[in-house]
């Protein structure tokens, strides 16, 4: 069997994985990058709107403190505040560094990086390239990896001496030596042959879980592998009940249902209307945001040119609010003919400007839906987009509770609390990708001995099993049933009864997945790959459902029809999932979050905090303010 030795193994080649790998290599570590798709095709490539960083290029009032406040508000104060702090402080440096590596962002008139408006961000903050920012980000990081390889070739005669990409290679198990990480086990998609990595440190950067839902903006890669690998290795997941349903996915034709329509459409002036032509978002501004959003269309429209004297239009509320509002309008019978609502930019900007600012949206609608967005409105509805929950890590280093295991990007949890702001993911990838790379390198430096090579007999047997059950059930059918179940029963609006029902279905599907079989050879066999991925999707879905059942309140990406209000007591509590090494016995426990550091909490007004905090916490706030 193919076996390699590395210092740091990074699983995932999206923004987080690449930034982590670049850092580990810059720290002199021999680094492997592993990914399921070709190099440069990870989900990050699909990000459209931009990367949030308080550079203050467009509005000089912006700074890390404003960004920090926006992030905490967006997450309804459930965020790991240390992560939100590091993120807000370091995002500008991480974006600037990309320019040094060749990125070409859109520019302001004075030649700086241009920044655009996005939901929940007080000032124009998103560095972008048209509506293809993710492509720019991943290509730049990919080209940085190549640059490092060229350097290594000059110095060591081998471009892959210190950093090597293993593309189309799927990891199915993390390996351990006692309590600590010892490497990873997987297979080559191309040949079906197995491969083992012996390494003291593993960085998970595998992205999200959207493929457990039918209507999603996510690709086949998002089967929650990293979440599952971490739990199976003994690490913990937090915030799994919080899933972001992006308000604007395509709704028609059926085959593209769920594909994303970037928030930039709204950031650049697009408005939402129902079948009666009403800009209904004005009816849905929740109390906590009442003083921050315009109350008339005129004020909202003026805001695009004069932000100092007007409040932003409610189309730019955080995503959870907009998604719920669209859901309600459709339920009330005021939806569009294809079951969404109207998103119109055609009456707001000249055609040429739309094509310039939103080229890929223009292209996407024209090619896939026969809709010309410069002439007519789009029809849009919520789509499963992003999971706030993930591996519980230390903010500064990305270290999980298992020694040697690190996580960054969408697979990690905490940074975004109960709801992520648009644009905060791309910056999160860069900030915490780098930190996880540093954390892993420091961990390796601190080890007296390398872990001993782990036995992979069980991992092998588990991976090969579906191929040996050639008469078994079709994995595509099990997958489809899981997607329907999660979509219908643990979707945007949840109820105890429905979630319990979903848990029963998941239990049955777990049994069925043990009998799925795959015909064909081991060479590039998607049926086999899916059968393996099912374990991860089922495990993650169970965590989502169990946590959703426990959290008896509504907050961000978790809305309970039976508990419609936000509770200050629940704000302090995180739900922590763990399971046995075979994935059985998923348990969810409550854990109290540490309260915010005094200097950070003092950045907020008391009147705002009253909406979120308990009396005891407010007393702490008063003490902190007094001290400073």
């Amino acid at each position, binding site marked *: 069997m193919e076996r390699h030795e590395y210092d740091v193994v990074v699983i995932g080649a999206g923004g987080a994985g690449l930034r982590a790998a670049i850092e580990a290599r810059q720290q002199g570590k021999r680094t492997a990058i592993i990914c399921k*798709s070709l190099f440069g095709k990870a989900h990050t490539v699909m990000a459209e709107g931009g990367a949030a960083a308080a550079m203050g290029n467009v509005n000089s009032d912006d700074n890390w403190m404003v960004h920090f406040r926006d992030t905490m508000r967006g997450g309804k104060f459930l965020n790991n505040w240390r992560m939100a702090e590091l993120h807000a402080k370091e995002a500008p440096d991480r974006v600037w560094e990309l320019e040094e590596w060749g990125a070409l962002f859109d520019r302001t008139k004075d030649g700086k990086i241009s920044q655009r408006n996005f939901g929940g961000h007080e000032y124009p903050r998103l560095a972008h390239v048209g509506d293809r920012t993710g492509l720019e980000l991943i290509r730049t990081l990919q080209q940085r990896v190549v640059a490092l390889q060229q350097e290594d070739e000059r110095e060591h005669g081998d*471009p892959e001496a210190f950093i090597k990409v293993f593309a189309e290679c799927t990891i199915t198990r993390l390996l351990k030596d006692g309590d600590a990480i010892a490497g990873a086990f997987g297979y080559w998609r191309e040949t079906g042959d197995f491969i083992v990595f012996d390494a003291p440190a593993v960085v998970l950067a595998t992205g999200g879980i959207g493929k457990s839902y039918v209507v999603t903006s996510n690709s086949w890669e998002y089967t929650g592998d990293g979440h599952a690998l971490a739990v199976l290795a003994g690490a913990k997941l937090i915030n799994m009940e919080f899933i972001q349903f992006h308000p604007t996915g395509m709704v028609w034709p059926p085959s593209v249902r769920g594909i994303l329509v970037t928030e930039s459409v709204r950031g650049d002036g697009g408005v939402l209307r129902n079948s009666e032509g009403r800009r209904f978002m004005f009816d849905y501004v929740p109390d906590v945001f009442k003083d921050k959003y315009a109350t008339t269309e005129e004020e909202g429209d003026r805001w695009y040119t004069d932000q100092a004297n007007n409040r932003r239009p409610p189309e730019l509320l955080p995503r959870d609010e907009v998604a719920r509002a669209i859901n309600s309008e459709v339920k009330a019978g005021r939806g569009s003919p294809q079951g969404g609502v109207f998103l119109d930019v055609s009456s707001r900007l000249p055609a040429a400007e739309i094509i310039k600012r939103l080229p890929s949206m223009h292209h996407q609608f024209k090619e*896939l839906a026969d809709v010309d967005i410069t002439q007519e409105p789009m029809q849009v509805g919520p789509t499963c987009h992003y999971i706030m929950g993930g591996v519980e890590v230390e903010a500064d280093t990305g270290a999980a509770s298992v020694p040697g295991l690190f996580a960054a990007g969408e697979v990690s949890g905490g940074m975004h609390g109960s709801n992520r702001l648009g644009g905060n993911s791309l910056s999160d990838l860069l900030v915490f990708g780098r930190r996880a790379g540093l954390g892993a390198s420091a961990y390796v430096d601190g080890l007296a001995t390398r872990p001993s090579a782990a036995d992979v007999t069980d991992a092998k047997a588990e991976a090969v099993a579906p191929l040996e059950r050639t008469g078994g059930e079709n994995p595509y059918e099990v997958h489809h049933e899981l997607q329907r179940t999660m979509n219908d029963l643990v979707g945007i609006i949840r109820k105890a009864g429905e979630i319990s029902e979903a848990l029963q279905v998941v239990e049955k599907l777990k049994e069925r997945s043990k009998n799925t079989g795959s015909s064909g050879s081991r060479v590039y066999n998607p049926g086999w790959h899916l059968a393996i991925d099912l374990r991860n999707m089922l495990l993650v879905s169970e965590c989502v459902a169990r946590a959703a059942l426990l959290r008896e309140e509504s907050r961000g990406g978790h809305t309970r029809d039976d508990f419609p209000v936000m509770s200050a007591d629940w704000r302090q509590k995180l739900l922590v999932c763990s399971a046995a090494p075979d994935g059985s016995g998923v348990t969810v426990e409550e854990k109290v979050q540490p309260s915010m550091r005094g200097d950070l909490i003092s950045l907020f007004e008391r009147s705002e905090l009253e909406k979120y905090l308990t009396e005891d916490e407010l007393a702490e706030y008063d003490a902190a303010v007094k001290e400073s």
Partner: protein
Amino acid sequence: MGYKAKFRVWRGEGGEGQLEDFTVEVNEGEVVLDVIHRLQATQVPDLAVRWNCKAGKCGSCSMEINGRPRLGCMTRMSTFEETETITVTPMRTFPVIKDLVCDVSFNYQKAREIPSFTPPKDVKPGEYRMQQIDVERSQEFRKCIECFMCNNVCHVIRDHDENKPAFAGPRFLMRIAELDMHPYDELDRKESAQEEHGLGYCNITKCCTEVCPEHIKITDNALIPMKERVVDRKYDPLVWLGSKIFKRSGV
């Protein structure tokens, strides 16, 4: 609305294979990739195909549909007659791994042969100043989603493996142009484009431009200007020197 379409799909691995016929359901609004996925889910679970975004953004699903290089996810079924047999084959220029999946490592190899972005050492992060108009030319080339269909269609290598070592293909010749037009890049790239990466093989047939799903004007905006400057440079060193001086002062 729904109908049964006739599909003829290349099936095979390890250098051997054949076209196989399938009859498969098609629904309103679907694209070729949807139909391939339906084949996977209902008839041939091990049918190999690459994809990710399903929205023309990642460049994974390149294939040849009725002989033309296309993205499977952006090719609407409504562009074909219902009675037509649709033939789907893998890209021809690269070795087939299985079914519709090819070994595209040639492209990653070539990517590594192009010297990377080389900015001046004394400009610190955060200090880069560029005008929109100066970045737009390179931005056009950075729209590339690396579907590799331009390299697939280029006759220099399409049926000529022997040219592969000396020719980077339109994708990576364009990468050289992109870096050359970057306001902060300091390397002179024209000569190496010609001498090391095979610009001279290109006889500007524009086939690459025609297939580019991002509608990048590869030939007109990247290859021809670079060829012109190679010529300038060869015959008139002053022109070259002038252009470099101008470029620096424009920074």
